[in-house]
């Protein structure tokens, strides 16, 4: 895999981590929690090289 592509997986993992962090930190707003997870879906499938 080219080096730059690896960096892109790195950026994706970083953003996914930030989304999870925000999800964990969110205490009250259920809607925000849901949004965190929805946005996380494409990042997860990309990181695991499914799509």
């Amino acid at each position, binding site marked *: 895999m*080219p080096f*730059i592509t690896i*960096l*892109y997986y790195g*950026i*994706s993992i*970083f*953003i996914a981590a*930030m*989304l999870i*962090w*925000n999800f964990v*930190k969110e205490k009250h707003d259920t*809607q*925000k929690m*849901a*949004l*965190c997870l*929805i*946005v996380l*879906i*494409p*990042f997860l*499938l*990309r990181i695991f090289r499914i*799509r």
Partner: protein
Amino acid sequence: MYLQIGLILLIMVLAYGLAKWKNLSVELCMASSAVAGGLAGAFIKAPPLIQLARHLVEGTFTYLDVMLVFVTATIFIKIITESGGVDYVVRGIITAFFNMRIVALLMLMIVLLIPGALTGAGSVSILTVGAPCAMALGYLGISKKRVAAILFIIAGLSAAAPPVNIWAMIISAGTAIPYVGFEFPLGIPVLILGTFTVLFLGWKRENNMELAEVLSRMPTIPEKMNAWRVALPFMTFFGLIAISRIWPFALPVMGLPLQFSIAALVALLVSPKRINFLVLSRDTVKLLLPLLATMAIVGSLQQIMTVTGVRGLISYTVISMPLIVLYISLIFIIPISEGILTYGGAAIIGIPLVWFLDSIGLHATVAIAGLSLIWPLGDGLPPTALIGRLTVIMSDYKGSYTSFLKATWVPWVLITITGILMILFSAKLSFLVEWGM
């Protein structure tokens, strides 16, 4: 078929309304609409129920790369802001041009136009130079509402400006019309309309502060801040874009997210202040969450609309209109399609529309240019209101979203008229294309 698809559309609208009534956010209303549409479609096996989850998830990939750009670009500009760079630049501009108002306005317009013109995304203009420009405009005595309006319109024009115009590129790719000769048909109207916008909205000075007073009101700047520390991250970013254009075959493709990430790293290194990168990133992602969710969910919505035939019905309705009605309705259809689908509108409506316009003897390149002047206006319309919402965040405007949108009406109308006239008289304006060839 019409009835069946119309029914699915109705169910989608009802689901949206119901969600809204239950006080769900815009993003979740759209998600509800997509799920409801998919379930309704499953009754006619479009999509089969087993495929519904796949369609919903596949849609979220439509704008995955745009999401990457948004996050990395916003982190980049947040680092610059945090380090005091934005305040530094604004102070510089105000000190130099406070008494040359028109020059200052035009300079800020050019600064705002460049990032969007280079990347094709108005959001990049807002995300990179939006905040400093907003502040500078504010100190020139322009109200926050008008500042936001200027930012939004100019960012929209920057997206339409050459060399990169994503709407035109999507239509060109789909219609097999070469993406060449757009420089003048896009560049000239963008500059004229941009100049009009900054002068019209920025002409009136709404306070009578003197320079000294303005400077005293500005936030203090970290001691070690200097021109280099601000310029270096920007030079890195624009330098990376420039070399990718000048020597496209000598270097590997980096893509905007990586270019922003590298620039962010440089900004972090030269910052005179220690910045907690992780906390800053987390907060940025939180700030952008509604926007990111919109991008993901709009993709799903688009996919469900397509697979159920709703998208086809809309496209069919537009294409079947009588010509005069079509021209008039473009005023609404184009921005609204952008508001609902972002770039998706260019594919759904733009491609068949341009084939049709081409077949009745209009000049396709000029017509595409005309259309793509109007599209960015839709970036201020709900449900997505992508650039509009970014603008409000970056310009720190606290009033209602509607009041901000109302402030844009004069340039909005002018841009729309220009775009429509360009389509109508595209054959006569074809010399603009020839100039660039």
